[in-house]
């Protein structure tokens, strides 16, 4: 929803400054040069917020505010006074009529936006379709944790990613870091003294810059009450200690809205490779499944019709993996793509133990798979097992 803001000021300069301040946000600005015009625009557009000056010709701001508040159709519109009239008595008199806030000129644009954001949910404007950030792009993660060993553990566990991980021990340091350069993700330990994590979270959510930054709660697995409190408050995710790094990585990528498809799908020469990692947790399988159909369709669209389903890194087979592999094979058949499986001795042996996978055949390596696919018949192989 695009918010409407009405600025009522006889100074064109102020109206331009207001428009300039709101430019980065998805807001439609309406202008009026005095109270009469202001009431007319308010009645026509029903704005979500009015910024109102006091000293104006024709009808001043106090009169406009009084009329606005006595009109049943308009009285609910929140008003922020933006005026050079800042004497205590004046402010008190106007506050009694009913205003949401009061900003005395001169004013900084950031302060105006900050006050307005308390009334309407300002969202940055999307200038065209932004290129999705991928798992291969750098991102900044702030860890707020008073135990250095945990910070070190996270830094070590995620060192294979391009993410920059900064650890701080106190709420004060965290506020400094978060406000200077907004991180892409914040992970805060709920064990910080004096409920500092919750205070910090509230502060992040009231700050326009960090309002939408994903915040994870880091908590000991058995601290159920704290986990419930974090969920109620709206933390983006709960990460339990001891930390399962693949879970943290997966949730972090999801929270930062990263395109993680490159983890599982890549183009290699004239074929597409679908690759599963060593440990296939339910989160990993769900993530791979999300991209499966779109990635296969994208490959076909780009002229690729050969697929290598590579599970040679997988340590152990389970039903989740088998289900995903069936889904991949069915997608290949639907899209008329040729495919082969690449496995390791352990996986091949485990496949013999399941009725549904007993007939699958595997190549030993990608090169072997490429050779097999180069000899592939024009027709798509029938699936009892893989089409090698």
């Amino acid at each position, binding site marked *: 929803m695009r918010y409407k803001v009405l600025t009522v000021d006889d100074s064109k300069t102020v109206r*331009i400054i207001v428009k300039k301040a709101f430019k980065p946000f998805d807001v439609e600005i309406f202008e009026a040069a005095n109270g009469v015009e202001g009431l007319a625009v308010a009645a026509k557009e029903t704005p979500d917020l009015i910024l109102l000056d006091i*000293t104006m010709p024709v009808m001043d701001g106090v009169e406009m505010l009084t009329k606005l508040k006595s009109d049943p159709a308009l009285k609910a519109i929140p008003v922020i006074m933006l005026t050079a009239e800042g004497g205590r*008595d004046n402010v008190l008199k106007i506050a009694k009529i009913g205003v949401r806030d009061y900003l005395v000129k001169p004013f900084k644009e950031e302060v105006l936006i900050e006050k307005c954001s308390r009334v309407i949910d300002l969202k940055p404007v999307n200038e065209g379709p932004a290129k999705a950030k991928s798992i291969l792009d750098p991102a900044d993660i702030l860890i707020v944790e008073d135990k250095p060993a945990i910070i070190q553990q996270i830094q070590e566990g995620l060192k294979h990613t391009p993410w920059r991980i900064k650890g701080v021990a106190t709420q004060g340091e965290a506020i400094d870091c978060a406000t200077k350069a907004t991180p892409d993700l914040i992970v805060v330990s709920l064990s910080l003294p004096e409920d500092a994590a919750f205070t910090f979270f509230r502060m992040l959510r009231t700050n326009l810059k960090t309002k939408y930054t994903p915040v994870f709660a880091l908590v000991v697995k058995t601290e159920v009450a704290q986990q419930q409190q974090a969920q109620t408050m709206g933390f983006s995710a709960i990460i339990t200690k001891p930390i399962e790094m693949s879970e943290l990585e997966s949730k972090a990528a999801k929270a930062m809205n990263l395109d993680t498809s490159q983890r599982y799908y890549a183009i290699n020469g004239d074929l597409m490779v679908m690759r599963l990692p060593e440990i296939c947790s339910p989160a990993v399988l769900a993530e791979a499944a999300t991209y499966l159909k779109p990635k296969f369709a994208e490959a076909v669209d780009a002229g690729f019709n050969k697929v290598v389903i590579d599970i040679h890194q997988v340590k152990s087979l389970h039903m989740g993996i088998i289900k995903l592999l069936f889904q991949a094979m069915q997608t290949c058949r639907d899209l008329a793509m040729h495919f082969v499986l690449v496995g390791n001795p352990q996986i091949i042996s485990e496949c013999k133990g399941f009725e549904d996978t007993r007939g699958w055949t595997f190549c030993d390596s990608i090169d072997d798979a490429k050779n097999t696919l180069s000899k592939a018949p024009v027709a798509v192989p029938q699936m009892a097992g893989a089409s090698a």
Partner: protein
Amino acid sequence: MHLFTRNLADLMPATAEITEALIREYINRAVTDVFKTMVGREPSFSTPADTPQQSQSLTPPDRPQVVGTVGFLGDVNGLVYLHLDLAFARLCTCHLLGMTEQELDEAGDEVINDAIGEMTNMTVGSFKNGLCDAGYPCKLTIPSILRGTNFSIEPISSAVRHVYFFDCAEHRVVADILMKSDDQG
């Protein structure tokens, strides 16, 4: 030093005397706040070598000036003229509105007048808010603009004048305050 007291001042314990020091403090704070906040430049209070005479121009005679005027009316009455040379007025306007010099040329003088009018409004507003809080409620008038070169403003005999100079980014800003003398005790 000029000393102002209100007729009712003695009856209102919350009311402070409007002394020259108070006026200087309020205008200094107002000018500093407005130029620092709105155009990112911090003016410094400056004491001229000679106190200007009543009929003397407050600004160099060869520099075109843009002068904003805003009055305050209430328990204390007066008028403030804020003098800026044209070059500085243009610079302030560009900064306020995020415009280039070329865009400003295309927009015309009206834009400069409006911007300087608003800066004067903010300055006088801030100044008079100090007076209000000191126990002298008053309201602002709508800004107006004077433009010209080599001119002087002569107050009527019943007005008391205070002139303050500020140096700001190699430019001089002059705040010329005229207060009605019947506001004095």
